[in-house]
């Protein structure tokens, strides 16, 4: 109180002094202002004053006294121009007379006064100050700049930045603001560098470069930052990253000594590595040679001398680099095989029959093992004749009828871990006619033999350094396809991998191609795991990977619209879309209540989630709502089914009914979600809707710890053969067993049996349609939508199918032209 009083008195004194001064100035020609602080004694206001208090301008009078006033206008005040204008008017007045002279006199009087208000909040009076008494006006903004410079000197950059940002926001064109900003960037960059944050320093220097490329010592600082970043990247074997920083420096300041130093060093290393690759190739170690050649061009791709040897080594042992967001066998909380599991299983398995194409939703099969397969006795016996010769590019060895019979036997032997109850119910016995021919005796005639035998496959597990001594040589000898290479070979992954990938796994052609080949094919597949689809696309564009599939639709459409991308990559539609659906656990106690299941079904807004979360564009042709768990164009799909329309109120009513039926409590439901960003977002949105109707939903994503029991599963799957795959899909144990269907009602079980026993495609389809109706209408599952899948392949890859059934179809026939990015990354 006392303090404010003293301030008021002080202000009043100043005001009175100022008033006396002004009044004397107005009354006298040579006023002598008294009681004001001299300019030399004035202190630059503190940052807090400048930020928090009313902006004040300083008016420096002729006697160096400083008058503090509220901000004057116009700003900046043109003092010199005003004085010149007064002088000009006075000259003009001399020549005039009468009214004109009076008018000019009035104009001079107006120009000669500066209206000011004193910084006293209680005194709102305006005072007129003669211009000729003013030596200078020091604006509030200039005071701020002065304080900023002082703060720079004291290294209080954050406070300085606060002042500067306000100044930039309010008066971006004020003289000195730009320079202060540049100084700030330079000082901040140096500070960041000192704090060990070179990336931040680089960002600031880039900004500074944009504002003023000729800023003093900018090149030196940028070179220092680049050196630190490049050295760090090289130490972490992130050569692409190092190249990016060096290229960045070189573009801004060509031929900087730092760039030249690294160019020389990395070039030398690249040459040395390529020499090692040549040596490895001379020693017939083509895999190492190819890997070293890739490392060499990754080290410094600008050397022209690398192109020739790289082509030689890369095309001899062709290594395909694939980017994925899901690796097989990596999903802890999801209790079903994932799409990635199935995708990579196709690489390592040689099936007796495999899907060749889909026509009108029906799968057509081919075989690599048999020349001929003929039915006899109205299909009760099938004689299979084995192929004896294979093309050199086929990763396949000659298989004997005994081996095939042994594989089939293991599937029909109840004591075997591979026992297939369904196959065993059809197959009676296997008769080996000769080393190249066998006959299958069926006790029941299957509608189609190919899908039945497609599940019989030769597989290759990871090769370990110590082979099991008990297994015979023939059992260990691979039949074909690709095999997962063990971890000991994957140790050098950083040399092979991309810098952003989290993990790599290696698949190697099980049967290597002969040296005498003229044209070699893909011998190794390196799968790079990225944390997001965006990272996959980045790696594609950088040249780190050659192929990917399963990108989210929104990202895919962006790439389809990108002309530059389309010049470098093929984007091929895969014939099998991915179906998304919600499956209810038949063993879940609360979900046995039909009211609860129906409530859940009502509360899923399928069209909105498809458009907003899955496709992110209602006009996208790559996704559609479905009413079946299999493809919508499959002849067995019951497209006449109308799933429940979204009605949150009906859902709420049914949830209340379910609560009543469950003795007043609705237990929390656990939903496990298939891997993938799209599934994750869609599942979260569905769970949000369910929470709106009063349900407690725990969403368990793939990386979470596995739940004790799940109630609902958000599944993504591909089901080309519903007659075969629907049973294990519904079964609790994911196998073709009767026991797995124990919890389903008898009428669903019997309909499944009817599908299983159907003897013709027509009866299979009609039984499946009926089963589909029962499943959807009894809310055993909620079909959501299907999304088309696309394969993205760099254009240096040849031989892949135009309409692939899956990502790795006929991959042993693919060839790869040597390619690497011939420019440094930008």
């Amino acid at each position, binding site marked *: 109180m006392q303090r404010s009083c003293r301030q008021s008195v002080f202000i009043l004194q100043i005001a009175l002094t100022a008033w006396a001064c002004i009044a004397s100035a107005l009354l006298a020609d040579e006023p002598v202002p008294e009681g004001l602080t001299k300019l030399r004694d004035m202190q630059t206001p503190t940052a807090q004053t400048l930020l928090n208090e009313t902006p004040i301008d300083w008016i420096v009078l002729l006697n160096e006294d400083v008058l503090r006033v509220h901000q004057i206008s116009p700003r900046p005040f043109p003092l010199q121009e005003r004085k010149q204008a007064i002088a000009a008017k006075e000259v003009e007045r001399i020549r005039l007379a009468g009214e004109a002279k009076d008018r000019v006199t009035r104009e001079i009087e107006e120009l000669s006064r500066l209206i000011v208000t004193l910084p006293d909040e209680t005194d709102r009076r305006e005072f007129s100050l003669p211009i000729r008494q003013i030596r200078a006006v020091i604006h509030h903004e200039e005071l701020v700049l002065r304080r900023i410079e002082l703060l720079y000197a004291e290294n209080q950059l954050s406070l300085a930045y606060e002042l500067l940002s306000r100044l930039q926001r309010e008066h971006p064109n004020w003289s000195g603001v730009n320079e202060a900003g540049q100084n700030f960037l330079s000082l901040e960059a140096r500070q960041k560098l000192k704090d060990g944050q070179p990336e931040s320093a680089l960002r600031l220097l880039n900004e500074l470069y944009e504002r003023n490329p000729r800023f003093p010592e900018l090149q030196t600082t940028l070179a220092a930052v680049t050196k630190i970043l490049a050295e760090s990247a090289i130490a972490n074997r992130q050569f692409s990253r190092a190249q990016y920083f060096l290229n960045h420096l070189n573009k801004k300041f060509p031929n900087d000594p730092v760039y030249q130093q690294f160019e020389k060093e990395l070039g030398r290393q690249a040459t040395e590595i390529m020499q090692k690759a040549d040596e490895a190739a001379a020693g017939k170690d083509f895999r190492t040679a190819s890997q070293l050649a890739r490392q060499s061009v990754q080290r410094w791709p600008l050397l022209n001398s690398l192109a020739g040897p790289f082509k030689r080594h890369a095309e001899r042992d062709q290594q395909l680099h694939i980017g994925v967001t899901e690796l097989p066998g990596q999903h802890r909380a999801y209790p079903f095989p994932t799409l990635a599991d199935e995708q990579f299983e196709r690489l390592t398995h040689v099936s007796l029959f495999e899907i060749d194409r889909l026509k009108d939703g029906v799968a057509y099969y081919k075989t690599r093992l048999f020349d001929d397969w003929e039915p006899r006795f109205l299909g009760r016996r099938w004689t299979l004749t084995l192929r004896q010769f294979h093309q050199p590019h086929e990763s396949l060895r000659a298989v004997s009828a005994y081996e095939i019979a042994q594989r089939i036997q293991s599937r029909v032997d109840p004591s075997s871990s591979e026992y297939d109850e369904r196959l065993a119910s059809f197959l009676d016995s296997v008769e080996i006619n000769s080393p190249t021919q066998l006959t299958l005796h069926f006790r029941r005639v299957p509608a189609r033999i190919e899908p039945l035998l497609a599940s019989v496959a030769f597989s290759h597990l990871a090769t370990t350094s110590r082979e099991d001594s008990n297994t015979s040589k023939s059992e260990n000898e691979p039949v074909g396809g690709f095999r997962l290479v063990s971890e000991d070979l994957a140790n050098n992954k950083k040399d092979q991998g991309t810098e952003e990938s989290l993990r790599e796994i290696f698949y190697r052609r099980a049967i290597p191609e002969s040296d005498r080949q003229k044209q070699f094919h893909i011998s190794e597949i390196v799968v790079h795991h990225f944390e997001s689809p965006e990272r996959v696309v980045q790696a594609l564009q950088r040249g780190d990977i050659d192929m990917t599939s399963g990108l989210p639709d929104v990202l895919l459409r962006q790439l389809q619209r990108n002309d530059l991308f389309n010049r470098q990559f093929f984007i091929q539609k895969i014939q099998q879309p991915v179906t998304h659906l919600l499956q209810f656990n038949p063993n879940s106690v609360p979900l046995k209540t039909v009211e609860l299941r129906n409530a859940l079904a009502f509360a899923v807004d399928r069209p909105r989630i498809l458009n907003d979360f899955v496709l992110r564009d209602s006009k996208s042709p790559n996704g559609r709502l479905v009413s079946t768990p299999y493809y919508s164009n499959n002849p067995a799909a019951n497209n006449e089914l109308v799933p429940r329309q979204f009605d949150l*109120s009906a859902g709420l009513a049914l949830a209340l009914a379910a609560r009543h039926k469950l003795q007043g409590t609705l237990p929390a439901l656990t939903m496990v979600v298939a891997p993938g960003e799209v599934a994750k977002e869609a599942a979260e949105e569905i769970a949000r809707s369910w929470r709106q109707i009063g349900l407690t939903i725990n969403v368990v994503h793939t990386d979470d710890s596995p739940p004790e029991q799940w109630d609902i599963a958000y599944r993504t799957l591909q089901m080309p053969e519903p007659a075969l795959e629907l049973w294990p899909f519904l079964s609790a144990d994911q196998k073709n067993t009767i026991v797995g269907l124990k919890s389903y009602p008898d009428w669903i079980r019997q309909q499944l049996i009817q599908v299983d026993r159907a003897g013709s495609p027509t009866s299979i389809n009609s039984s499946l349609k009926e089963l589909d109706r029962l499943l959807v209408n009894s809310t055993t599952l909620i079909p959501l939508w299907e999304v088309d899948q696309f394969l993205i392949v760099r254009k240096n890859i040849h031989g892949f199918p135009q309409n692939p059934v899956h990502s790795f179809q006929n991959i042993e026939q693919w060839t790869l032209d040597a390619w690497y990015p011939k420019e440094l990354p930008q």
Partner: protein
Amino acid sequence: MRNSFGFSGIVRRSVQHNLLFAILLLCITGIAQGQSPKPEKPPVHSPVTPLNLRPYKIAVVISSSGDSTVSAETIKRWEIECQHLLTSWHSGSWNTDFHTASSSITNNELAAYTRTAPAPHWHISGSDKTIGVTLSCHTGSLAIASREWDQLSQTYGPVSQAECHDEREFANEIATTITQAFRPIVELKLRPDGEIEGVIQAGEFPSQHQTASHIDQGDMLLPFLRVLNRKQELVAIQPIPWTYLQVTGTDRAQVECTMHSTFQSPFPKSSRRVSTWALRERPSYPKTVVTIIPRGKKQTPLAATRCELINITPESTSPASPRQLLTDRNGSLALETDPEHPLKRLTVFSGQSVLARVPIVVGIVPELELDVPDDSARLAVEGEIAILESELLDLVATREIVMARIRTAADQERWAKVDSLLAELDQLPSQQAFLARIDKLQLNSIFAAQQAKDRVAELRIKRMCETIRTSAQKHLDHTRLNDLKTNVTTERQQFEKRSM
């Protein structure tokens, strides 16, 4: 398979008879030995000798295979020793003749006969029972297999097997397997009070091998009928399916039984031409595979059908918890033999209905077929009813929600909204439409049941449809709908009057 290495099988000769019994035995044995075999004569015994005193005529046919170190003389010696043993064990109750098979009998051949297969080529006419014995000698060990053919029931018993490595025990083992293959015969009588009692053939004679050759409390009897014509010639032998008699008490040749049957009265009324017999059967197979077949559809057994297996225990003990089972793709259940609780009850379900409830003794036969009614039509209706119930729930919930919205909109005097909601309400399926669906379902499924002549299924279908119909009539009642419309119209009119 049983191995024997010691003297455990040595016969004890300390048989104690009473005098009268001994005299009677000697007489009967003498008569039996004095009879010359008459192959063509049917096995109808003289009515003079009561059944409880009538010894079995047993022909043992021995066939050997294996290495040549076993000579015919050795086998003959074993036969003689074996006959001595059997005579001493079953003195008086068995008249045993040993024969050598004219053609070889193999173990596989013995095992291959089904229970009701025709008489084997090694059957000796005139005997009550023919027991085929195969001996396989391999490197000093003897594998023995015996199987009985019972002339009265014209059925085979289970194969009794043993393996012996001690040559001194060979004859003993052969006699033991023969004894184990033997199934005693009981003539049954249905008492007026409904209890069943029986007389064991030759049951008055004591035996050294009581457990093997006689009937004990807890043993299971499989009954069958012998139908004769006026000339007392055999016309047919009818096994009584899914009927077992559990022996509750024995007194020399007399047995008392408790019946376990899927039928209420499996035995016909007493008749001179129909006699009721039973064979004692003991579980000898490790499991019994029961195949469930819908009537008239043998090619499509009932796969994935829910079944329940429960031990049948005396009423005094607490009931066991049932085992839930599912038939496999071949419509079969593999039931394992349980020596503790041989008698079980198998219940076959189809949806909410019970298709069959039968007693079963697991292990007596390797395979069984259970005929059940074809319930597919009724089961399909059950599925449709479940779906209709689900749709009814949806409909009722949606209807209630729309009606509540109409009330809210009317309260807020938003008449355009009321109109659109009323239109939405009219779009919902009406009670008539829903009932028409139920009628159509009922009509079609009852027609299918009538075609299949399944009266029970027809009744069940009617009952199920009636339940859902009642529910639909209750929850899709017109009255509330009409009341709502009337109220809304009244409120609207009042609003319009106020507005004017």
